[in-house]
């Protein structure tokens, strides 16, 4: 069997407080995880649960205090290979404004391949391809500051795609966007995963986004508390609510009805799922 692209073993990490007298804050307490190539994984949790810290370990921005992170078999502690790792795992952050380097869209997308020393003609090809993929081709000559938040975020994704990574990690990419922007970003992420076969790790606190993944990892207090397909994760409504997450309304409706003894399936996530199940119930 092929080796998983991401292997995390017993990862422990603490942040040292700026005040030396305070004990370090333990952000990750023994996280283990394997992500096979081509998977769409969502990591769910409230702020401060350690999900962003985990994300930052996946391309060597942070290195484990103990334990190990292997990206395509390369240890992230290996300083000589850090740029190989960053090329394999691209990273998109929350605030689109703070990850765009250049004033013009296509110049920004070219930034990473330029850093990598890719020949100019090849950069051009990659930039065009990346912008096409995120559907921003017609804005390529525009000034980045004139774009909407969602468009900026798509440019940021294109900037990562231009490295031709095999995996893309997105750290709450939609937290600052309006619903329209969010939908477009999600659609883009699905394209990357389904059509280009890219491995996607989506860090989020939105359930409806996580619902679209192949697999959902729920984190709380620096540890993984659930790891399953979305349908099974979201049927555990009480536990999710207890750790400060919310459940999509269709799942919650089904859950509440089940508690009242109504027989409904456990895997209801979307409005359509719910309507179908209720119609079936009422038909009987």
């Amino acid at each position: 069997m092929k080796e998983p692209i991401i292997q995390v073993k017993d990862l422990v990490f603490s942040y040292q407080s700026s005040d030396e007298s305070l004990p370090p804050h333990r952000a990750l307490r023994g996280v283990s995880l394997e992500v096979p190539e081509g998977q769409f994984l969502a990591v769910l949790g409230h702020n401060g649960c350690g999900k962003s810290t985990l994300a930052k370990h996946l391309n060597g921005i942070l290195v484990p205090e103990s334990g190990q992170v292997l990206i395509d078999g390369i240890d992230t502690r290996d300083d000589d290979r850090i740029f190989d790792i960053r090329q394999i795992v691209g990273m998109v952050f929350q605030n689109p404004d703070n990850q765009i380097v250049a004033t013009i869209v296509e110049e920004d997308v070219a930034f990473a391949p330029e850093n990598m020393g890719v020949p100019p003609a090849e950069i051009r090809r990659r930039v065009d391809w990346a912008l096409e993929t995120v559907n921003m081709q017609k804005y390529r000559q525009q000034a980045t500051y004139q774009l909407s938040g969602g468009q900026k975020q798509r440019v940021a994704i294109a900037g990562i795609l231009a490295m031709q990574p095999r995996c893309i990690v997105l750290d709450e990419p939609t937290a600052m966007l309006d619903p329209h922007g969010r939908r477009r970003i999600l659609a883009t992420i699905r394209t990357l995963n389904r059509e280009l076969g890219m491995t996607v790790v989506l860090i989020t606190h939105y359930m409806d986004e996580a619902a679209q993944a192949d697999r959902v990892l729920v984190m709380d207090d620096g540890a993984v508390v659930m790891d399953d397909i979305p349908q099974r994760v979201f049927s555990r409504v009480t536990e999710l609510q207890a750790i400060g997450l919310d459940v999509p309304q269709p799942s919650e409706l089904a859950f509440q009805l089940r508690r009242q003894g109504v027989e409904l399936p456990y895997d209801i996530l979307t409005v359509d799922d719910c309507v179908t199940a209720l119609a079936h119930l009422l038909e009987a």
Partner: protein
Amino acid sequence: MAIIKTTDLTYIYNAGLPTQTTAIKDINIEIEEGAFVGVIGHTGSGKSTLIQHLNGLLRPTSGKVYIDGRDIWAHKEQIRQVRFDVGLVFQYPEYQLFEETVYKDIAFGPGNMDLSDSEIDSRVKQAAEAVELSPADLQKSPFELSGGQKRRAAIAGVLAMEPKILILDEPTAGLDPRGRDTILKLITRYHQEKKNTILLVSHSMEDVAKFASKVLVMSDTGVLMYDTVQAVFSHAQQIRQIGLSIPQITQIFIQLADRGYPVPRNVYSVEQGVHEIQKLLQGREGGKP
């Protein structure tokens, strides 16, 4: 009498330049005192421009704004008074924190109002309590607080001015569910205690349906609807046409009703939904021979 009233309110950005854009056009609204209004509309519909007119940050290109029956631009030099009457909490308000301590930051607004020191002190303490910040938090630097706490401190800075009208522009943006619920709970409680007028700009139809009594729908520089939650969400088709959604729970019941099941179309909360389905199932069992 309406506490907020606008007549033919129009605002044009960069008038006379090639980049001239009409942000809002001929807006006529009347908002009654004590209402909790959810303001919805997609980005660029004019919501932000409208709310910045209500406390006199923007001056209308044409038309009038009346607060409590008074034309706010009748006496230009009194515009600061309007800002104390109409408190505006911007998006990501934590980015405005600047004082050494949270206490001093919350005191900034009331400090600008020529109040006595003891009055300022009591207002700061009340506002901090309203947003659940502890006395210990008040002595911290605002930059030491967590994200959610910073947001609450910034909201307290506006509450401490004790405005008659409180406007919040997406106060939960970027927060996680727990942070979001805390903020919404605080706002609701504040509304219940003070009985003042609240305008809440939000992208979440679920939140609007849950907390607001009225909904103001903005679309393409104008007001599309201003009505009760029930009335607004009953126009599901129209809401969808302007690129907004209706609460998921409402969608479920509308679809069931469309398929011919005897359920109401105006369901806005999960509790209500559970109740309706149960009623239907019980009615059935009762009807069985």
